[in-house]
């Protein structure tokens, strides 16, 4: 599959459905694996890296899941193409910085992406929409099982799978969910939630500017430890915590509707006004306002048909996605102008928010758990 056809369609996880999709954007599981007694990519000489790559790439490509895969050496991707893959979470930033000796193979649905010679020889990542940690693990685990038929992975009975960084040793697994928590941010309870989650050994990541606001009200919750606990136990523990966070976000939404309605509709109304009329907008501003539009859809202020276009803007306003159709590289000012133009264009079809509506029991509440 060509790069152009890969990016022409959004990944399966970007379709914004799946269990609890109003709050859980996506679920990801990645497994780190290495070949026995061969130097890890960060320490390997170029010739070693290439040899390892040439051993692994055909094996990865022959996985059943990788029928009609997109497969490419990193040095053959342009900076912009790499950045598009980063924005879609299909490769890591670290991998995007790689050149000769590294590759990426991903399936057509963009649900399984295997990085070769990232920090470890293999980083297998499965990504699913909504709250589907178990399904994501199943997908990654299946690829792992198929590969270990023919490859001898570095494994010790005591320490489990051996990884370049000791923080990943054991299961080599990082499971995470991307959560959209605008109400917890608006009612200023997000820090309490983050602290509570941190206390039990899970990590919350997000960009903090001044104050406590994260970009686009998006937070990633993941396991911090990989040794001493079974994969299923890690995923169950993480899943239970995420269920609690979902409940907190839902009740925060209810509280806002009941007790701080004016503030809530003011925020959503302003976001709509600015997004509809701005002529220059950086990506942080865009994400923060789009987050409020998304909340507006969840609460019924906008018709549910506008969920998809709103969500698409999250990705389309990212710097690389913005430029993927441009012939030449855009300056920051040009990007901000183009971003505002794209947002205005899409919002032209949006009706003004109907602020008489408003129910937290709107959409997506009854998602089946995985």
């Amino acid at each position: 599959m060509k790069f152009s056809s890969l990016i022409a369609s959004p990944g399966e996880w970007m379709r914004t459905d799946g269990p609890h999709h109003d709050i859980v954007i996506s679920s990801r599981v990645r497994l780190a694996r290495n070949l026995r007694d061969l130097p890890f990519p960060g320490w390997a000489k170029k010739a070693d890296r290439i040899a390892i790559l040439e051993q692994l790439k055909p094996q990865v490509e022959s996985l059943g899941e990788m029928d009609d895969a997109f497969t490419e050496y990193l040095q053959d991707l342009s900076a912009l193409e790499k950045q598009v893959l980063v924005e879609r979470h299909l490769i890591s930033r670290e991998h995007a910085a790689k050149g000769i000796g590294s590759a990426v193979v991903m399936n057509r649905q963009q649900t399984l992406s295997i990085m070769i010679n990232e920090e470890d020889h293999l980083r297998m990542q499965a990504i699913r929409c909504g709250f589907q940690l178990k399904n994501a693990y199943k997908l990654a685990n299946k690829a792992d099982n198929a590969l270990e038929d023919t490859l001898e992975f570095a494994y010790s009975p005591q320490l489990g799978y051996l990884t370049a960084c000791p923080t990943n040793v054991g299961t080599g697994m990082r499971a995470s969910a991307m959560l959209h928590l605008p109400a917890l941010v608006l009612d200023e309870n997000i820090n309490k939630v983050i602290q509570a989650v941190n206390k039990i050994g899970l990590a919350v990541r997000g960009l903090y500017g001044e104050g406590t606001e994260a970009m686009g009200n998006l937070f990633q919750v993941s396991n911090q430890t990989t040794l001493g606990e079974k994969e299923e136990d890690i995923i169950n523990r993480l899943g239970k915590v995420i269920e609690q966070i979902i409940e907190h976000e839902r009740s925060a939404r209810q509280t806002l509707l009941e007790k701080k309605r004016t503030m809530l509709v003011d925020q959503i109304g302003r976001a709509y006004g600015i997004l509809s009329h701005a002529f220059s907008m950086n990506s942080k501003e865009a994400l923060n306002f789009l987050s409020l539009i998304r909340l507006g859809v969840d609460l019924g202020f906008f018709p549910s048909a506008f969920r998809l276009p709103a969500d698409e803007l999250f990705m389309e306003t990212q710097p690389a996605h913005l430029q993927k159709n441009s012939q030449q590289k855009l300056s920051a000012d040009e990007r901000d102008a183009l971003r505002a133009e794209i947002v205005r264009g899409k919002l032209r079809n949006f009706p003004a928010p109907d602020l008489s509506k408003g129910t937290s029991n709107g959409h997506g509440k009854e998602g089946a758990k995985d």
Partner: protein
Amino acid sequence: MPGSNIIQCDVCQSNEAEVFLTQIVGGKMQKVNLCKSCSKDRGVDDPTGFALTELLAGLGTSTETEKPAVAHGSGESSGETTTVVTAAKCPVCGFTQADFKKTGRLGCSECYQTFTESLGSLLKAMHKGTHHTGKMPVALARRKEITERMKSLQDNLQKAVRDEDYENAASLRDQIRRLSGQMGN
């Protein structure tokens, strides 16, 4: 003076910090202040792609516990208590303890054996346990299962012979034969 309130970037130590990160891991609070360009360089502007611990490791302020590695299997007996720490070197990939300190990463899978002593306390501090309890490679799991089954069959066979239960012993012997056949595969 209000001007002195400017917080410097922890990485380049020159620009004004604009990104303030806090992470609490296992009760330990870690803070990093970064300027715009360093935060970009380190991928911090992607809320999904960074780990504070990794940032810290790169800055040399990680909470790792250090212990000099003792040269492994080198047969040299210094006899003295004040041994000069000979930098342990991985026999497979040539990685040293100093390399680990610098990068926070290991050289190859054998390094876990080479630096086992210094890694022990680090792993203990980092993780929930010190023993892997999760998945193992399927082939290995199968081999382990067969070995265990073989052992139990042999124990039962001995017991059967001791008890002169020859009928049972014959059946056990057949099972052992079949299992050895499988092991050959």
